[in-house]
């Protein structure tokens, strides 16, 4: 039942397209977590001309941002509604939760979705089982563990063999 992690990866790879509206005009994006992924995403979105706010509980994390980063940085806990409001979540078109804590990402994403009704919410979850559960619950999730393992399998075995391995994995 539901979407298996491997299907999730192919779906993702074959181009999970951002909605046309988000691609065309400038959008407001709130990013929770300014680690390597969060900062890279923030720099990317900023350079593409979008309005970006990044939240992290460590001010040192913001050093990962480009020197000419034009977005906002907010210091604080991402599951605190006040901090999310300060980051502009009420006006945000999109929200990404990419801290290194699965549960923090899950809770923040649900706040963004259920309380602030942000249109596009994406949540990173490392634990594949948790990822599958919340995916089935309707959260847009992605699991770097499964994606990374799939890419490695492909690199090691070549694509058809990897697809077969993924099917095997799904049967279990």
């Amino acid at each position, binding site marked *: 039942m539901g979407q298996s992690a491997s299907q999730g990866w192919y779906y993702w790879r074959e181009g999970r397209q951002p909605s046309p509206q988000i691609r065309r005009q400038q959008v407001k994006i709130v990013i929770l977590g300014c680690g390597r992924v969060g900062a890279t995403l923030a720099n990317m979105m900023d350079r593409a001309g979008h309005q970006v706010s990044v939240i992290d509980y460590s001010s040192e994390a913001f050093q990962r941002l480009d020197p000419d980063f034009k977005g906002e940085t907010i210091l604080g806990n991402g*599951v*605190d*509604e006040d901090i999310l409001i300060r980051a502009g979540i009420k006006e945000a078109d999109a929200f990404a939760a990419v801290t290194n*804590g*699965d*549960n*923090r990402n*899950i*809770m*923040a994403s*649900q*706040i963004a979705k*259920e*309380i602030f009704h942000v249109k596009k919410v994406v949540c990173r979850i490392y*634990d594949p*089982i*948790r990822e599958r*559960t919340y995916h089935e*619950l309707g959260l847009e999730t992605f699991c770097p563990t499964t994606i990374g393992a799939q890419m490695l399998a492909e690199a090691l075995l070549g694509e058809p063999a990897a697809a077969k391995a993924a099917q095997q994995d799904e049967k279990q």
Partner: protein
Amino acid sequence: MYIIIGGGGDIGYYLTKTLLNQGHEVLLLEKDAARYQALSEELGEAVVRGDACEARVMEDAGVKRADVVIAVTGEDDDNLVICQMAKRRFNVNRTIARLNNPKHEKIFQKLGIDITVSPTKAILSLIEAEIPTTRFVPLMKLRRAGLDFVELRIPAESPTIGKTLREINLPRNSNLALIVRNNQPIIPNADTVIEEDDEIFALVSPEGEDAIRKAFGALG
């Protein structure tokens, strides 16, 4: 009952001990190795080392036959995930979460956690009840009914003094359950006249709270 508790801090520890004494079957999950050691010396097999957020740990703990799952770690996001996984993945009937930040009550309820307990809020209500200027005290949340049970004391400047309940415009979905006057309970009806210092116990919808506060001129 079979009860699984996530988080072996002080609350988890005392909860486990008390529930075991009451004859329940209890399993306490603690992920920290050192803390687990300390707990297991006293609680023996009732404590298991593991992260209650992990589906596999919960499965090994027999979550599928658990009557209740209680999450009492010091992190609200962990407590939320423990309860949601128990409920949505393993169909546990009742889940109880400790809230460290009382502001998370709304989101937890919206996300299907059956019961939330906030020590911070409990202490705050106790303090509020002791301060004379605060005249509006939330007593209890009736979650299934979507109502709050509140207490308010009629201040001297209240515009409702001398009026009957019929004359006072009460918000929809709110209901005065009881008036306590000079230590005597009065079951109110439409002809009951409000007096200064009346203690009123009312059931109100969360949206109606402000309206009822204003209607009676209650502060705080």
